[in-house]
């Protein structure tokens, strides 16, 4: 601690090194998971849905590195197959809320007025209820389906995206570069989307990666509770749920490896978010 106080520069350097490391490691991890998901579409050691490729509840072995489940299906193959579903849904959800949130927030921040007012009231309503509970309720009402899950989980964090972008745009629209763009004859929407928005994305991007880990966990939780994605399909959360009884009789591997999948995905996004957000506060303009 003394060192941190006496040599702020040195500690800033350590922090910088750490966030670069954090960012790189997160990206590598994410790419590995995306790669696994894509690869699993072409090849898995065993067919993921085939039963009885090994004995029932076999512990991890060379033939089945992650063991087998109660139907004798290979857990490694199923976990790989699930990576396609979980990583795919998570990326789709984050992309959707990032795009919709950015456009919505930009418009609200730029034009203000009644649209802005209405936006804020809608967001308040969305915020007055815990998100995961809302997801559970809405999906139980809407019924299962991958697209429904993507849509519902994407709507929940929208308030945060909209707010972040809205604040950025609101404060930057009076800056000189925006004035300059107006003076050379850019139309309002051009100023907004070609000049203001690209310069306001940084905080929302770092938020998006933190949000992505929430999304990964939420998708898993919905699968675990049997809401949303077809029960029994290869999805990490529902695989964990199916292994619940087995774990209580000592067969830890049935739920352990799918959980590891969710953990790696969420951790990857956390590390990326950490790297981005530290970079924003410590260096750069802000």
């Amino acid at each position, binding site marked *: *601690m003394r060192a941190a106080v006496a040599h702020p520069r040195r500690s800033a350097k350590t922090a910088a090194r750490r966030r670069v490391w954090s960012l790189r490691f997160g990206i590598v991890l994410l790419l590995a998971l995306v790669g696994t998901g894509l690869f699993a579409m072409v090849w898995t050691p065993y067919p993921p849905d085939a039963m009885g490729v090994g004995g029932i509840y076999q512990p991890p072995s060379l033939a089945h590195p992650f063991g087998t489940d109660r139907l004798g299906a290979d857990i490694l193959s199923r976990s790989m197959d699930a990576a396609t579903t979980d990583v795919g849904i998570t990326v789709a959800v984050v992309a959707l809320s990032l795009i919709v949130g950015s456009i919505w927030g930009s418009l609200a921040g730029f034009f203000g007025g009644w649209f802005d007012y209405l936006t804020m009231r809608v967001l308040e309503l969305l915020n007055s209820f*815990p998100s995961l*509970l809302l997801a559970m309720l*809405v999906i139980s009402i809407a019924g299962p389906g991958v697209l429904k899950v993507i849509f519902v989980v994407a709507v929940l964090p929208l308030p945060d995206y909209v707010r972040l972008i809205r604040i950025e745009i609101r404060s930057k629209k009076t800056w000189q570069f925006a004035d300059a763009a107006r003076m050379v004859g850019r139309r309002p929407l051009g100023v907004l989307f070609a000049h203001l928005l690209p310069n306001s994305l940084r905080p929302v991007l770092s938020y998006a990666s933190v949000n992505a880990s929430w999304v990964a966990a939420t998708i898993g939780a919905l699968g675990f509770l049997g809401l949303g994605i077809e029960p029994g399909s290869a999805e990490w959360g529902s695989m964990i749920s199916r292994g619940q009884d087995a774990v*209580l009789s000592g067969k830890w591997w049935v739920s352990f490896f799918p959980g590891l999948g969710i953990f790696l995905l969420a951790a990857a996004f956390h590390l990326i978010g950490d790297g981005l957000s530290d970079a924003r506060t410590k260096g750069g303009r802000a």
Partner: protein
Amino acid sequence: MSSFPNSQPTASASGGRRMARLARPVAQFGLNSRSVLAKTASAVLVIVLIVSLTFLASRVFTADPVNLFVGNSASTETREKAREELGLADPLPVQYLKFLGGLARGDLGRSYLTGRPVSADLMSRLPATIELGLYALILGISGGIVAGVLAAVNRGGILDAAVRAVTIGALSLPQFWIGLMLLWLFFVNLQWLPGPSGRLPIGMSPPDRITGLYVVDALLHGQTDLAIRALRQLVLPVITLALGVFAPIARLVRSAMVESLESDYIRTARAMGIPTARIWFAYALKPGLLSVLTIAAGLVGWVLAGSVLVESIFAWPGIGQFALTAIKSSDYPVIQGFVLYVSVVYVVIWAILEYVYSRIDPRVRAQ
């Protein structure tokens, strides 16, 4: 929107942005800008709106609950009769008005599954959830503050790295998986702690009710053995739930502390020879406490949601598990009761937070 620093200069903009994000739900009521009456009215309005939306959504989109009672193959006559009895035969607006009328009298209807009044069912399960959530919040918040302070004063050291690893782990590991693995480790393997059998080991009867919290009640009756048994049942679910509270608080405290440790008033305090521990916890921690409060209030919502998952793993007979069963079987009255309960808790928590804010923060008080 008083807490959004819209046009502040660059240096504090990022910090301000972070605060704005943390403080957002506080801002929605407009800090101290309206009278208590107006706030109460708007809170009630929000609750009514949420409950109405749930009502509408559950009536319009879900499967027909009549199936719950008569089965899919029942004759049209039987179905109509059941519909009549359940009050589902009326036109939707009539159903809605009846529902609102009941709500105003505190009548939430009867559960389709248990046949008992929803409010009684919820109340009987409330202590179990409170016991779980309360201990988890206390443990998570206090643990998070201590860990965050220690990490900040050891910045770059081993302790800092350890806290960082634990928080990233706790934030990334799915809660239901943590619970399951804790059970595997401490119940199946080591046999140190009891399995998922609810609030007490099977066959034990609860203490006479005073507060509804088993550990407290057992202690008040002097039944130490029972209290210990109940406490052992609590250990794993509470830890599972508390980890999710601990992690964000520890991170927040750490970053706020790192900032304040470098400020001049801390250097002055150090020069004055004030004991180190006092400087850490009394001086450097203080500026960060407001955002801790905000996050803690948000985490109450998280605990409410988390209780659904944790209660289902540990067979904990609380509101979360009750709600999950209701959600899975389209038991509307219970779902509505649950939504009402959650939104009331939420609104009350934010109201308390706002009050506390106005007591602590001189800037807010001055407004």
